């Protein structure tokens, strides 16, 4: 366990967000993951992101499948409804929930087994559908709960704890999402909050499916020499291409970078994502360039991180469907049921 239960004391000096809530109001149950697990850092970053975005916890819904990563939805925002569904099938449950109530903020937490093996099809189709969901893929290259089998994201040549090498090529969720038309594709590292938190915030504001692949080392089964998803390997090989600042609409926009080194993208809701150009010429709005960049980084043995691709217009299921803006759960029965006269009239067609 990574922490001990803390008493619910509210220090009067604790910083509050626009809703008057402290960061602690966004916490959940105590984590039962291994001490040092990367997932707990992601949980912490999510708490900060939701808190800083002033999202009322009860207006968010936490969706997950099965696995270590999927357990983490219990460890943040205890005031939100959560749904720990079946293995690999969270996207369909999230689709149904979103279809019924589009007014909630949906966050889905998954892992590399849940997303890239058993749930690969569901992930792909949620992307294609334009489900409005912040999809956090906590990626450690290993099956933790069943004690150390390779997952589909394990790199060729990466070794398991007992030494045997992985021979099958990996599935890269970033390349997958890019090829499927995702409008928000990012990669980060659980150990780099400065990078991860703005990405999560931008993902929450995105009008569509936002994929955030987070390299999140497994301290118990994939943090050894020979692993390519360890803390050490990731720190040494992560290459930030486009560090971002996310500026919500309601906050005053202040320039943080000198003109010429930063590029601003305005999201559909008016908020802004500001890219600082670390790599000369990197254009996060060019899908093909993003794909090529990620591939070239891999060839060099590097992991490209940052917000790698963004189409600020997004692509969203209800917009495609032209669903009414009122959440379907709030549409009164009287306006859903055509009533007696309409049925009588319709039945004339069946004689």
């Amino acid at each position: 366990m990574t922490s001990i239960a803390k008493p619910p004391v509210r220090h009067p000096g604790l910083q509050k967000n626009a809703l008057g809530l402290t960061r602690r109001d966004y916490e959940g149950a105590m984590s039962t993951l291994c001490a040092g697990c990367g997932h707990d850092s992601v949980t912490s970053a999510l708490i900060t992101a939701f808190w800083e975005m002033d999202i009322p916890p009860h207006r968010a819904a936490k969706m997950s499948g099965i696995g270590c990563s999927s357990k983490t939805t219990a460890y943040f925002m205890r005031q939100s409804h959560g749904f720990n569904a079946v293995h690999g099938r969270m996207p369909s449950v999230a689709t149904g929930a979103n279809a019924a109530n589009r007014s909630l903020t949906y966050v889905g937490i998954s892992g590399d087994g849940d997303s890239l093996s058993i749930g690969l099809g569901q992930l792909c189709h949620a992307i294609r559908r334009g489900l409005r969901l912040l999809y956090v893929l906590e990626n450690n290259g290993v099956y933790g709960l069943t004690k150390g089998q390779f997952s589909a994201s394990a790199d060729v040549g990466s070794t398991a704890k007992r030494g045997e090498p992985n021979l099958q090529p990996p599935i890269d969720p970033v390349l997958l999402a890019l090829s499927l038309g995702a409008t928000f594709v990012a990669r980060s590292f659980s150990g780099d909050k400065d990078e991860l938190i703005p990405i999560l915030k931008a993902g929450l504001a995105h009008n569509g499916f936002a994929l955030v692949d987070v390299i999140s080392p497994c301290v118990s089964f994939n943090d050894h020499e020979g692993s390519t998803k360890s803390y050490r390997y990731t720190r040494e090989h992560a290459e930030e291409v486009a560090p971002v600042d996310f500026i919500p609409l309601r906050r005053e926009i202040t320039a943080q970078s000198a003109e010429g080194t930063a590029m601003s993208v305005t999201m559909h809701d008016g908020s802004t994502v500001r890219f600082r150009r670390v790599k000369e010429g990197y254009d996060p709005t060019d899908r093909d360039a993003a794909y090529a960049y990620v591939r070239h980084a891999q060839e060099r043995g590097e992991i490209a991180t940052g917000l790698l691709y963004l189409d600020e217009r997004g692509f969203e299921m209800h917009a495609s469907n032209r669903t009414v803006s009122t959440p379907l759960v709030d549409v009164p029965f009287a306006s859903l049921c055509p009533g007696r006269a309409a049925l009588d009239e319709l039945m004339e067609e069946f004689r």
Partner: protein
Amino acid sequence: MSGINDFAFRIGTVNGTGSASANTLLMQSIFRMGVPVTGKNIFPSNIQGLPTWYEIRVSKDGYTARPESLDLVVALNPGTYARDVAKVRPGGYLLYDSTWPMERTLSRDGIDVLGIPFGEMCAEAFTGDRERTLLRNIAYAGSLAALFAIDMDVISEMLKEQYGRKPKLLDSNFRALHMGYDYAREHFSSPLPFHLERMDATGGHVLLDGNTASALGCVWGGATVGAWYPITPATSLMEAFKGYCGRYRTDKSTGEKAYCIVQAEDELAAAGMVIGAGWAGARAFTSTSGPGISLMQEFIGLAYYTEIPAVFFDVQRAGPATGMPTRTQQSDLLSIAYASHGDTKHIMLFPADPGECFTMAMQALDLAERFQTPVFVVSDLDIGMNDWMIERPRWDDRFVPDRGKVLTAADVEKLPRFSRYLATNGDGVAARTLPGVGAKGAYFTRGSGHDRHAAYTEDAAAYQEVVDRLKRKIDAAADHVPAPILRIASDADGSVGPSIGIVAIGGCNAAVVEAVDRLRDRGMRCDYLRIRGFPFPSSVTDFLEEHETVFVVEQNRDGQLRSLLALETGIARDRLFSILDYGGEPLTAGVVVAAVSQHFAGVPA
């Protein structure tokens, strides 16, 4: 049978040639003459080029089961001539396209063969392959109108309704119709000894298929989310839902939709979507068939254990595996009753015709929310895809949907603590909250072991408390599923002796009703119980106990309903005799009559 307003005929064509519209024309015309009529489409799992048949039964007595013998067969597919000739009852008629000579080996003594050169007539009168092919169908409809004395005014009116806005098409259809009609009148003694005479027995009725009726039940019942994966024979259900939502739920000025239909990547996802939508508070459903039910098993267990409303329409087809997708069966009963691993049991409703598809769709939506659990409307291909003559569905504007126990934010505030899985009264149903209700009402839905507060548990007592309540809850649903319909033999029937019990479900009903009448005419007393819901109400057990001999009629090989009855009621299996019909075609009364008669004659079935 065979007489005025009491006969049956079959039309054999090649699928993809447009015969469906001609067959519908014939059936609807008979219906509009006030004569009870049923149509059964025997079609291939194919788009073009394979044999397809359409059977129409005219029954002044209102019987809607599939006919046992055919008074006339229209053979327009040379590939099935042999089969079509063999299907004609002795003394019946074969009508074939004499444009091409029929092989002598196919002639048969004891039937009348009528040849009409449909192909040649259409080739002369019309241009283009497509037009000639399509109008050949209207030509045979015209000939049958002459042979059966179908009112030409009625047919003409129907053609006008259909093609009124396309004068050219209307004209060619009229010409084809009269060509066929005139030829038959000139060459054969028309009408035939069995034919139609106007009646007044279809008023207050409609011709409707079950999938359309189910879809209408979902529209009128307030379903807003439909998730599905296309599969025969359930596809037309969601397509109909989509069509009617387009008509009734789309804002005419803005084009905005008060519904959301998602075509999923597979049946697993479709089930997940329905469950997600139900969790969030929408009335949601999927339409599928046996293979889909197999794929959905895991999610069904999740919905059962986490107590989420979800409605599943299973339009059954012949299994196992891919089976025969365009043939009917009732073979998913056991795989639904206890679907998913672990201890589960699910509510099932068994509509017997499209009228019940309409009402049971609404009941399923209500029951799912009342009991917070998956509910299955177990239909079949025969009900779902064939046009049945049913009493006109009606709607009562006073209807209020049963949304079950859903706590509002204000309700939650009154509680010292919200415990999702704690039932406060005897029905075993615990109140739920919907996402977004407020911090105090939030809970974590999990398929893993949970206690009354929805917290994770591996504690034996806390786990058992929840699953024991689930059992009580589902058992209690037996009193809320549609009650069985009992037809008790009357002394006035003149039958004698102790009654035989007959039990059936769903699409078997039409044939069993007819069989019971025929058995009565032979002096056998039959009490008939049609089961309409599962878990079985206690009246089902009572019926089984009250009858020394009970026949269980169903359309599967293994007697799944009989097994379910034995398992659930504890009745001795050796008192339940199976009457099974599982070749994939709709049941006929004759199968039931023969099996019961043979049983008492000591002949093994």
